């Protein structure tokens, strides 16, 4: 046979035995390294179980700690034994007990025969490729790591800090350029011999003994010195999560692995009966030279990492509850908030819904109840129209509403008469588009036909609340898209504003605004506002309405300290 296998085993011996038999029955000699931490009786049982096989050797055992030198020492010892004992071996494949061969041994043998001088080892320079795990990449080589990351984390961290503080740097042995990659490789006899018999191996080994996770860098660096032709990829399919731990394959991955055309996958869950029954495949379905195709698998595991690190935007749930300002956007989708529009156009919601495909709610935060677009007492996701339930957690009421209908653009009316708890959230949310006609609350007061003296207190209250809201919108923390105009400015050119709103919501599907919604009859409003002023209540947020004022208008009043408002 053209290749031999070095197998590192530390647990799940029944599976390991199964795998050894697979390789041996396929014609490959196997050298097994069993972790020295495994107790003698268990080791003996395992060795005995494989006693009937000729081409299986057990090498001297080393202690293997994750991230330590032991794994490299183990593969060195085992590889030496393999090369010495089986002179026919052209390639050496490094595998573990949890590696699951997918395709028949003969296919791998043919593939390697077709690439007689190629070393399959993932090997990337640390200078160019950031290696994501643990926040250390180049420093793996320039610092010393005498402590175990798993068992002596405190010492490990302190010692790294200390070296960083002292600006300590180790010197790389001459001629070496640091490279890293997957620890599972398949090397040619020539390359492996050259690495193992290198006259400077003593120097190299001493250096790598204090490198962090040397099994991901020792061979990866040294092949660059000795190899003639490197394919920088591993023949073993191994996916890693965001902490650098290998993803595990289960029964439900069978179809996926079947299609991938990979030779070996790791790691398989030892109890995944279905996987171990389906693989290794006995019959060949691929052309001998079929290259592995892992696009689907890559995508699935990349999206898992993405979900774990960034999550679904706008979702607040039992296992995603970002701290303030770590939300990646508060709500799940863009939404629009309209203040004052329904005062000027009583039918604004219907009009807007007809011209865009948006869902246009009424006053969601009204004091009496939630006014959903449907008018029902319950809305999508089971949101209740109870004002008390809503106010109990107004922020989450809104994030739930947007999440539940995240495939549509949602809009709602807002105003100074509504519950104000969410104003900071609205201002800070990059998904919010907020349109305010300031002072529009004066319109319904005017239309109520009550005298200025009767509505004076109410007007002052509304103005005070709106003023606070505008201050929030104008604060430096506001991140929403915000448009504020006075009532006077708006009635000058309502079409332009409405067109902008439709364009923002409907995008290129928006049509030109040809007819305006019916406007409330505001003839006489300026006089009403003047009456309010005469009562001592200056409606400074309405702007200067120029509709034939009864009394020649004075200059627009700035906010004055004596304006009566509610704190």
């Amino acid at each position: 046979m053209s290749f031999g296998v070095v197998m590192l085993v530390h647990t799940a011996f029944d599976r390991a035995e199964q795998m050894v038999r697979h390789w041996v029955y396929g014609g490959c000699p196997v050298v097994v390294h069993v972790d020295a931490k495994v107790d003698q009786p268990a080791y003996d049982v395992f060795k005995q179980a494989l006693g009937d096989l000729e081409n299986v050797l057990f090498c001297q055992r080393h202690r293997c700690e994750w991230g330590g030198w032991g794994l490299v020492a183990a593969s060195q010892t085992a590889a030496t034994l393999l090369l010495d004992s089986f002179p026919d071996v052209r390639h050496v494949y490094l595998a573990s007990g949890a590696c699951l061969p997918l395709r028949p041994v003969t296919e791998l043998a043919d593939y390697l025969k077709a690439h007689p001088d190629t070393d399959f080892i993932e090997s990337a320079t640390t200078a160019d490729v950031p290696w994501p795990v643990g926040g250390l990449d180049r420093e793996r080589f320039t610092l010393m790591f005498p402590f175990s990351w798993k068992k002596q984390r405190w010492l490990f961290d302190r010692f790294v800090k200390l070296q960083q503080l002292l600006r300590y740097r180790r010197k790389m042995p001459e001629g070496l350029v640091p490279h890293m990659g997957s620890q599972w490789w398949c090397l040619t006899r020539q390359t492996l011999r050259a690495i193992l018999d290198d006259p400077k191996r003593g120097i190299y080994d001493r250096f790598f003994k204090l490198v962090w996770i040397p099994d991901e860098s020792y061979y990866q660096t040294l092949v660059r010195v000795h190899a003639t032709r490197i394919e920088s990829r591993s023949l073993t399919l191994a996916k890693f999560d965001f902490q650098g731990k290998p993803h595990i394959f289960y029964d439900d991955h069978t179809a996926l692995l079947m299609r991938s055309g990979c030779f070996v996958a790791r790691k398989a869950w030892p109890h995944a009966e279905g996987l171990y029954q389906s693989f290794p495949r006995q019959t060949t379905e691929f052309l001998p030279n079929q290259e592995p195709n892992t696009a689907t698998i890559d995508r699935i595991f990349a999206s898992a990492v993405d979900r774990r690190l960034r999550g679904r935007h706008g979702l607040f749930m039992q296992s995603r509850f970002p701290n303030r300002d770590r939300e990646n956007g508060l709500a799940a989708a863009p939404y629009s908030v309209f203040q004052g529009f329904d005062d000027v156009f009583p039918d604004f919601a219907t009009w807007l819904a007809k011209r865009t495909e948006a869902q246009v709610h009424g006053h969601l935060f009204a004091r009496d109840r939630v006014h959903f677009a449907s008018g029902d007492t319950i809305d999508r996701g089971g949101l209740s129209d109870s004002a008390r339930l809503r106010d109990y957690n107004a922020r989450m009421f809104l994030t739930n509403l947007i999440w539940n209908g995240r495939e549509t653009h949602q809009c709602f009316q807002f105003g100074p008469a509504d519950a104000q708890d969410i104003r900071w959230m609205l201002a800070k949310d990059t998904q919010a588009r907020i349109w305010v006609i300031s002072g529009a609350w004066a319109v319904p007061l005017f239309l109520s036909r009550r005298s200025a003296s009767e509505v004076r207190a109410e007007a002052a209250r509304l103005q005070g609340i709106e003023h606070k809201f505008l201050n929030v919108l104008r604060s430096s923390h506001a991140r929403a898209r915000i448009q504020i105009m006075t009532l006077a400015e708006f009635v000058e050119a309502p079409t332009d504003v409405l067109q902008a709103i439709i364009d923002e919501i409907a995008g290129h599907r928006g049509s030109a605004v040809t007819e305006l919604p019916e406007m409330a009859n505001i003839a006489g409003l300026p006089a009403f506002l003047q009456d309010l002023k005469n009562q001592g209540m200056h409606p400074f947020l309405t702007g200067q309405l120029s509709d034939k004022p009864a009394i020649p208008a004075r200059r627009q009043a700035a906010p004055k300290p004596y304006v009566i408002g509610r704190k």
Partner: protein
Amino acid sequence: MRWQRKRWKARARLKSRELTPVANRTSQIAANDILLFCTLRNEDVRLPYFLSYYRNLGVDHFILVDNDSNDGGAAYLANQPDVSLWSTKAGYGDARYGVDWLTYLQGKYADGHWALTVDVDEFFVYPFCDTRPIRALADWLDACEVRSFGAMLLDMYPKGPVSGAVYSRGQDPLEVANWFDAGNYIMTRNKLLRNLWIQGGPRARVFFAEKPKKAPALNKIPFVKWRKPYAYVSSTHMLLPRGLNLVYDQSGGEKTSGILLHAKFLNTFNERASQEAARAEHYQKGQEYQSYAERHGADPTLWSQWSEQYINWRQLEMLGLMSKGNWA
């Protein structure tokens, strides 16, 4: 915090005197076995399906406390080969709703095991639970060095009045009550114990709209790699040491989480609500039950046009009620 935990542990030792072993098969428990803990009272009708559901998931041993049942359920349980049963006649409320009894048994038998603590009407669902046994989840959590796993309580209810969900012994309760609320859950962080406090769902909507603060808590951490010093604080809502309560990500990512399908609203419910309200042994003197009992004559309907019908865990994942996290 430490003293609070010690207090609960001491209390559990004290309360352990109320327990009498009925069938103790704990000698069968092997290293690495997955254990289930549960307190129950007059649940005979639910027991066969409950046991078979969790046996299917791969639970190895059941450790149960029978609180003075008189419906024959205890005898049924005592005959099961993988059940260890204790019984007590003492008050449920006085034992902090059963937590004291279970804390004692967990400290004694669960050290070093993955322990699932649920009620008889709670059905644990986790990502890939249709293809991967609970052992796979435990192994994966071990590999990630995660010690506790959250699963929000999701109230399931029938279409129409609750009395219409007629349940018979051995049946899957989700056949008769398989609707739920998908998107009305609210949560805040408990600064002291660091857990999330989740409320909402049909009970908040129908029974507690006027007093939302009193709505029942839905956050649960039922699956824990148990250590002797651990203790649940209130039902399985939170634990001490409080680091175990951090089952959620705080920087925008999603941790892996599951759901406890809560099949409480069956035709057995109305009768039970009035019984329990009279007994007043439940949390906050059974206020929740009294609330139900007030509406008892009306026979509550929880279903609405926006209710979702349960299909599988993938649906719950998509709706954002649970998450695969980085388990793929």
